[in-house]
């Protein structure tokens, strides 16, 4: 925790967001103005209310003066007529005008008297009616008529009591309205003798003023309390908000954890599902592989069957064709006149034919059954290897220019297997070695040709040396524990690593695309695959060691028959 962090026990308001008082005040200004306006209006109403009684009294007096008609005409009408006569007397003085003016003066005086006297006489019977002290008509700037001391007026014989100034009031107005004051009507009166309404109004006014006096500070207090309450509520809301936020945060974390768990479970399930799918896919692949293998085997079987049929057909034809030569050889040998040398050559031919026939017979036996269905017998591998050069060494030397040798430890290496299959596999290896030596020889020849800087002699010498190069095929057997080991080594062209990895694949061949083998062997890619199948059927392992230009070594291990039986 850093030094600036808020302690846990710090007051809540310290941790609350700062209150932007200026902003709130600024936003409350309209409300305050409205409130002040309403307060001022209320004050004005109360003030007007305070003078209401006086205004009402004045209005009542005004109505009394204006609307009372002692005889048809009201006082303002009389005053206006009186004023008009005064003006006329000024403009056109005459006895007639003067007379009319005096009459109007007296008429007005009578009107005032008739108006006011009853209020004085019956004052005790009219307690709510003001006590009228004077009703005076004044025409400023104009003198009264002759023989009249004043303008029309009426003054009460009752003396206005001293000290009654508070009750004394004077109403003064113009009969012409508010704009023309050429004539004035003035009424002096005292308010009601005992006006309970006035007293009630006064009490009410006092109460209202007290109420206003209470209302104003109370409003301020309420504002302050509202502020406090709002502040407290705000802090509480902030607290609740924070708690809610924390709870929400915890809940969110919990939810996230649960979501992660669920995600993990879902991922696990997905993984399992994918694993299952992969397993299923693997199974399907395995199934397809096995199917492919089975198809391959079936194809191989069909191929072998086809080859076998074809080979059988050829072998049969060849065997049939060899019947006549053998018969002819027999007749030749039985004929007389042949020297020994000829006899020996014929014997050799006959022996060779016999071997060919026997081989054809073996081929026929072989191709007439499935290569995967071996005909297992006990076979002495050392003996089989030892006999192989006897069959192929002469041909190898004469035709292939290859020295074929076999070497063993002298001890029998009996294995369980199909003789023809093993014999065919060994021959396939020998044929491959033969092809490698051919290729090596060609390589040497091409190298001799392409070598620059050689003169003709040297080049010829090199070509001769290349042509005289002898291939070597060495068959070697030995025992390694419970296994019989057979090695077929040659000094041919060797294989690249890629070729080495794929050389056992069916139909893989380097001969088909190689022009060097044209005329010798088309290369169908079946030889080594056949060897691999045979060895697989004999529970043998095959090791291939080779590198380009360094020949190749095929080594396979087969369990010895004794050890196998013992193990069983």
């Amino acid at each position, binding site marked *: 925790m850093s030094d600036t962090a808020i302690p846990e026990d710090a007051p809540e308001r310290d941790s609350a967001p700062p209150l932007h008082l200026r902003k709130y005040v*600024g*936003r*409350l200004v*309209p*409300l305050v*103005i*409205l409130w002040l*306006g309403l307060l001022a209006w209320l004050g004005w109403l109360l003030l007007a209310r305070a003078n209401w009684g006086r205004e009402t009294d004045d209005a009542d007096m005004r109505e009394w003066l*204006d*609307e*009372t*008609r*002692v*005889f*048809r005409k*009201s006082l*303002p009408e009389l005053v206006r007529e009186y004023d008009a006569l005064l003006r006329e007397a000024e403009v056109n003085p005459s006895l*007639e005008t003067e007379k*009319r003016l005096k*009459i109007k003066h*007296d*008429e007005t005086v*009578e*009107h005032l*008297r*008739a108006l006011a*006297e*009853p209020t004085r006489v019956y004052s005790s019977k009219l307690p709510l009616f003001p006590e009228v002290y004077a009703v005076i008509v004044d025409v400023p700037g104009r003198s009264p008529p002759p023989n009249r001391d004043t303008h029309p007026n009426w003054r009460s014989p009752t003396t206005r009591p001293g000290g009654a100034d508070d009750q004394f009031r004077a109403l003064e107005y113009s*009969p012409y*309205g508010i704009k023309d004051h050429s004539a004035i009507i003035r009424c002096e009166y005292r308010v009601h003798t005992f006006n309970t309404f006035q007293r009630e109004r006064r009490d009410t006014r006092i109460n209202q003023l007290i109420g206003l006096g209470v209302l104003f500070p109370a409003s301020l207090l309420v504002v302050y309390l509202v502020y406090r309450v709002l502040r407290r509520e705000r802090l509480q809301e902030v607290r609740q908000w924070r708690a809610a936020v924390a709870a929400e945060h915890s809940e969110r974390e919990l939810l996230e954890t649960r979501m992660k768990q669920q995600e993990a479970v879902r991922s696990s399930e997905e993984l399992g599902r994918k694993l299952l799918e992969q397993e299923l896919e693997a199974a399907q692949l395995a199934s397809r592989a096995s199917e492919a293998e089975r198809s391959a085997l079936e194809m191989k079987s069909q191929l072998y069957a086809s080859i076998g049929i074809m080979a059988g057909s050829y072998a049969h034809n060849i065997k049939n064709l060899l019947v006549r030569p053998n018969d002819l050889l027999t007749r030749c040998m039985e004929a007389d006149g042949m020297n020994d040398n000829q006899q020996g050559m014929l014997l050799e031919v006959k022996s060779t034919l016999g071997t060919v026939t026997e081989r054809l017979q073996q081929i026929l036996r072989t191709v007439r059954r499935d290569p995967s269905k071996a005909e297992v017998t006990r076979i002495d591998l050392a003996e089989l290897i030892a006999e192989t050069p006897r069959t192929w060494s002469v041909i190898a030397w004469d035709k292939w220019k290859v020295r074929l040798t076999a070497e063993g430890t002298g001890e029998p290496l009996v294995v369980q297997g199909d003789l023809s299959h093993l014999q065919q596999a060994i021959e396939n290896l020998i044929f491959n070695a033969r092809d490698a030596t051919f290729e090596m020889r060609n390589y040497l020849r091409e190298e001799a040709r392409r070598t620059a800087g050689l003169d003709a002699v040297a080049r010829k010498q090199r070509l001769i040396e290349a042509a005289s190069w002898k291939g070597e095929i060495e068959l070697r057997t030995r025992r390694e524990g419970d296994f019989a080991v057979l090695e077929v080594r040659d000094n041919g062209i060797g294989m690249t690593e890629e070729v080495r990895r794929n050389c056992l694949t069916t139909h893989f061949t380097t001969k088909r695309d190689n022009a060097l083998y044209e005329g010798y062997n088309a290369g169908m890619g079946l030889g080594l695959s056949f060897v691999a199948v045979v060895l697989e059927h004999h529970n043998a392992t095959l090791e291939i060691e080779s590198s380009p230009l360094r020949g190749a070594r095929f080594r396979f291990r087969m369990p010895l028959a004794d050890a196998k039986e013992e193990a069983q």
Partner: protein
Amino acid sequence: MRRFRRPDYLLTVVVCACVVVAMLFAASQIALRRRQALPEPVSVPGGDWEIAWINTPTASDTWDEFVTGLKRAEMQVPGLVVDTSEAFPEHTTSVPRVAISRPPQQGKLHFRWYKTGTGVSTADWLAALAQRDPAPIAVIGGWSSDRAIELASILNRQVEWHGDRPLLFITAATVDHVQSNAGSFGIPGEEPQLTDLYPGRMFRFCFTNKQMAEAVTDYLAQDPSLCPGYGSWPGFPCFWGGAAGGWPATIGLAALNGPGPAIFTLQWQDDPFSEDLADYFTEAIDRRFTRCTDRNSFVRPPSAPAFVQRNRIPFSIGGFARTNSGEAEAVREIVRQLRPPGERSVLIIPSVTAPMRRVLLALSERIPGAGRRLVAVTGDGMSVNAVYRDVEFTWPLRSIPIPLVMFSHQNPFGWDDASSPPPPLGYVLDPLSKRGTQSILLYNEMALMLIETMLPESGEVGAKGADELAVRFQTRMPAVFDASGNRLGGSGEHVLVVRPTSRQAAVASPQRADATITAFRRSAKSGWQKVKTVEVRAEGTAEGRPHP
């Protein structure tokens, strides 16, 4: 836009709106006050008519009687609806109104009381009404002769109206002729008539001064107890004098050929009604009692001209009981010129209650046996209510023994009885109320004429405007108005005779009423017919019960 949704902005808008509303309200109040300086007539719904009732704000009693007269029209016209719900509004400054409708007739007849006062004159109201559309079909006003002259003159000057020029209905002004100059009053027959001020558009539902004077004089001539001159027929003193020994009879015989009756007139110069009526009274009495050349007549065969004393009083204003200077001077003159006891003189006192009260009180105080030496005659200036309903306050009967003959345009005692149709609730004319009915019946009569013309029975077409209304009034049968719009006389006039009980009789019989008031109705065929007599008691209960 979100910015304007913030509370402070909304609050500012509210405050500004309040300020604007307050300013508009203040401005409207100022404008309203300025506008209120001018009268503002009430609008008239389309298809309706208005009759403007123009009077002073203190005429509440008159309005009450007017509304009562209108409302009671429901009694005579089936299906009539007189809406008085706004006749007495709460505020005195409001315009009281009555609406009359008669389903299924379309349109209503509105009566509005436009109050004249110190700030608003009759001319102001008429000017405002002239600007309003539609114009009123009629104006009811002129509650005194001088006001009627003023009103008629204003109406005659006001030519432009939205529609027909309104008619003028007069119900109280009785003056016949109009003074041409202030202080100079016309001679009957030479000055223009009131109806000439608004020719062809004025209709007077009341009788004129001339008709009143002739009616009162006619009655006076037929009532021996009130005849001017010697009491009753002059031959009676001769008869009783002869029976007594002969010499006393010479007194009566001398009277037969003595001077004509003394006629004292009081004319208040500020009241054209008073001047006009006094002239007519003087002429009628003089013609009836002194210029009669028929010596065979048993009524009055004098040949000497009447003594006429005119007393002109400058103004009518005065106190309750104290005469003003002009009245006091007139009283002094009358006392000085009064004939000796035994001869009754005629006091023509054409005014309203207060001047009459002051003068009669003064004469009663100064003239011994004034009740036998004078008979006061007047027109309609004093209501029967003054001497009947309000006798305790307005008419000191015991102090005024002078008999009084008054005129009434309608029966003042026409209260409801068992034979009357049921009146509307609150509009009963109850004798116990002691309320005179002459004005109510007069307004009721006018209302019936208006309803008959404007809202006739279903199937008839009412008048559509003032012009058509004037024509129908003129051609109405039986005729009510003459060609100039004055009401036809000779029938329907009422005379009230107030006979105070003499002091001696009152002392002799304390149970006796202070006075009796007898109403007579004039009939074209049978002359004066007594309608009803009521007793008046100034103290205690003053029940109006029929005179035995």
